[in-house]
């Protein structure tokens, strides 16, 4: 996921205040309780079995929609073996006199994404049919995930060696390529100049926090699941610090690469815009080639406006004001835009096929790595439970999980699939994660008791957590999360109804539309399904205990 500039300060602060302490907490809980998320929280307090279930539900939602990104990465990867790249030029229209109309209105990369990859419908209501090409890629993506988790977490560990190290190689190649591109410096300057008005905007801090949560994988239950396989004496404190530092360094490193490529793309577009204006002026006024250049463009415009006022006035609506800042400011967010921006930058490089293959292969490795974490979070509770694990071998359990997710994932390959994807992407995880992590911190600090937890850590790794960890766990992190929560809710209440961006083929751009009723119901269900698990779990345990007590008292 991409970020805007001046992001480093909130990002680093959120990392120190939330990322590292919560990572240590989850690793320690998993290592101490030696079970997946459901069992681990049950041990801490029987009323908290809902937390584990909520984590599993969130992971389940995530695995449903996240693999579609891998399907798209496969699609782009397979299409990178052509010359020229299919998104570099527009296809011709039916009588071969020009390019397709929709492609003319927008750019060839956007056309390739919206029309040839997604075949997107104009709104959420028009569902359309399942796109067989995307369905094939989705099936392949799930088969790859199944191959990696087939033998259980032990084998997944070996796969992660590859999926975690390959992206670094590609990033280094891209760093060298990116920094040598023309215009990369513009992007880097843009990235490192802090924009003070952005720092005062709470949305920046929220995106920083969400970014930390997602990249470290807090609240999904996958960390607890993985940590439960660790040796009991494993030094999870050191690991937590190392992991978060490596994670942040990688993020910053990746941002440098991203912004240098972004600067290249923005400079290229800016120069193309200027060249178009120059060509327009040359053709309209029959001036000699080379008389108007980028340097004297403004003087020439003034001169022409003075000498031929009438013709210039006629031409004026077509003359665009090209600005480098405007190109750099175009918002970069959402998975679709990530595909568009990068494919646009790649098509302008030399040997674009090589860079395209490398980039989408790296994206695939990262996506599969994330999917492995998600599926581990779902499978560990299933294989932990005696009822299921004794009856079916783990190959069958993994197979059923992958198959069910694949079938549900076919929804996202329909023509309106991308709109449903955006719903899941925006609402399935964010609020629920915040709540889960908040309950986790409060549970460990106040219900389980921070002194008891301290003693456990001392028994496990031989040293007590110092004041930094304890302050963060007990005060800073919960307070931060509560304030984020409050902001989300007030933001939603203030803006009223929820809206989404739909692709309008006739205009060649995105338009804002309101969600229909049933989509709002689905959003509500998504958020409720995971958050309600926590109070429901507590309620169920309370009722069970009550019934047991009554049974005992009637027996006695």
């Amino acid at each position, binding site marked *: 996921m991409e970020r805007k500039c001046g992001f480093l300060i909130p990002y680093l602060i959120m990392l120190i205040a939330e990322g590292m302490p919560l990572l240590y907490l989850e690793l320690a809980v998993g290592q101490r309780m030696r079970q997946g998320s459901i069992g681990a929280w049950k041990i801490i307090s029987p009323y908290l079995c809902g937390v584990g279930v909520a984590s599993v539900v969130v992971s389940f939602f995530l695995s449903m929609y996240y693999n579609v990104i891998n399907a798209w990465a496969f699609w782009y990867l397979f299409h990178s073996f052509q010359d020229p790249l299919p998104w570099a030029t527009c296809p011709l229209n039916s009588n071969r006199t020009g390019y397709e109309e929709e492609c003319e209105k927008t750019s060839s990369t956007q056309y390739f994404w919206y029309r040839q990859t997604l075949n997107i419908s104009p709104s959420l209501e028009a569902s359309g049919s399942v796109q067989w090409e995307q369905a094939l890629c989705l099936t392949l993506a799930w088969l790859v995930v199944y191959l990696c988790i087939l033998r259980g977490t032990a084998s997944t560990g070996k796969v992660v060696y590859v999926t975690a190290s390959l992206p670094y190689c590609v990033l280094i190649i891209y760093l060298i390529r990116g920094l040598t591109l023309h215009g990369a410096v513009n992007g880097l300057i843009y990235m490192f100049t802090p924009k003070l008005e952005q720092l005062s905007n709470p949305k920046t801090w929220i995106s920083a926090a969400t970014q930390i949560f997602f990249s470290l994988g807090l609240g999904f239950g996958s960390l607890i699941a993985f940590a439960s396989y660790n040796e009991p004496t494993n030094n999870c404190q050191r690991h937590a610090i190392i992991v978060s530092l490596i994670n942040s360094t990688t993020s910053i490193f990746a941002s440098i690469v991203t912004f240098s490529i972004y600067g290249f793309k923005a400079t290229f577009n800016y120069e193309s815009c200027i060249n178009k204006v120059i060509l327009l002026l040359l053709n309209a006024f029959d001036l000699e080639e080379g008389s108007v250049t980028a340097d004297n463009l403004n003087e020439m415009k003034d001169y022409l406006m003075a000498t031929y006022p009438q013709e210039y006035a006629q031409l004026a609506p077509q003359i665009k004001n090209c600005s480098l800042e405007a190109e750099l400011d175009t918002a970069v967010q959402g998975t679709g835009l990530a595909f568009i921006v990068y494919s646009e930058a790649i098509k302008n490089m030399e040997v674009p096929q090589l860079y395209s293959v490398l980039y989408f292969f790296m994206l695939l490795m990262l996506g599969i790595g994330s999917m492995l974490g998600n599926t581990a979070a779902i499978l560990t509770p299933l294989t932990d439970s005696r009822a299921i694990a004794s009856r079916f071998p783990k*190959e069958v359990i993994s197979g059923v999980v992958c198959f069910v997710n694949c079938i549900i994932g076919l929804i996202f390959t329909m023509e309106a699939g991308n709109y449903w994807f955006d719903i899941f992407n925006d609402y399935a995880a964010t609020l629920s994660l915040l709540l889960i992590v908040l309950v986790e911190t409060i549970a460990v600090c106040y219900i389980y008791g921070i002194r008891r937890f301290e003693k456990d850590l001392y028994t*496990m790794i031989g040293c007590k957590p110092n004041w930094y960890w304890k302050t963060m766990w007990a005060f800073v992190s919960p307070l931060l999360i509560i304030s984020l929560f409050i902001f989300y809710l007030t933001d939603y209440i203030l803006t009223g109804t929820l809206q989404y961006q739909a692709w309008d083929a006739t205009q060649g751009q995105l338009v804002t539309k309101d969600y229909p009723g049933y989509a709002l119901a689905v959003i509500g269900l998504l958020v409720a399904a995971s958050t309600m698990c926590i109070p429901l779990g507590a309620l169920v345990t309370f009722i069970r205990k009550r019934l047991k007590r009554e049974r005992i008292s009637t027996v006695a």
Partner: protein
Amino acid sequence: MLRALLLTLSVVAIAHAELCKPDAQNAFKVRISIKTALGDNAYAWDANEEYLFKAMVAFAMRRYSSKSTTQISNVLLCNVTDRVSFWFVVTDSSKNVTTVPGSEVEAAIRMNRNRINNAFLLSDKTLQFLKITSTLSPPVEPSTPVWLIVFGVVLCLIVAGIVFLIISGIRKHKKKNKESTERENLEEKVEVTLENGIPCEALDIKAGHVNGVFAADDERFTSL
């Protein structure tokens, strides 16, 4: 005699000026961008290049209509600007002071566009006939799309890997079953031990025979 000659020449010149002017009937505007196409190797546009252009248009007309009546002098150029752009018109020598219909000229140019472009080392974009749209060549499409081929290769590899892992897993399971039934015949059945509500077998999978919290390293305790 001289006066008659001068008169005819001026009439011809006026006629030519009448026939070839911007937006005249059957006239076409041409726009040439030599510097964009050739960069440093650009040649200058002078009278010789104009002569070549007239020759190419005459050639195109001859090839199209298959009658050898069009001469270079039938092609008239006018309003040459610095851009480089100019208007041209093709006159009909059989009928006096008329121009060949625009549709014929258009068809002739279309048919020979490639030859005309190559004569000037230019392309459809850099040698533009403004009213004549060029037919764009479609990209070469192989019979099976390339992506399907790559997809097929990757799919076969993945499926082969899955089948291999499943079969080796089944074989290992069968071997373990055979060994455990042999062992059971020798020993009596041990009941499942539970620790903290978890069977010890599940704990074994997680690399912990001993729950490290309740029984820490033996080194911490003094040996009895």
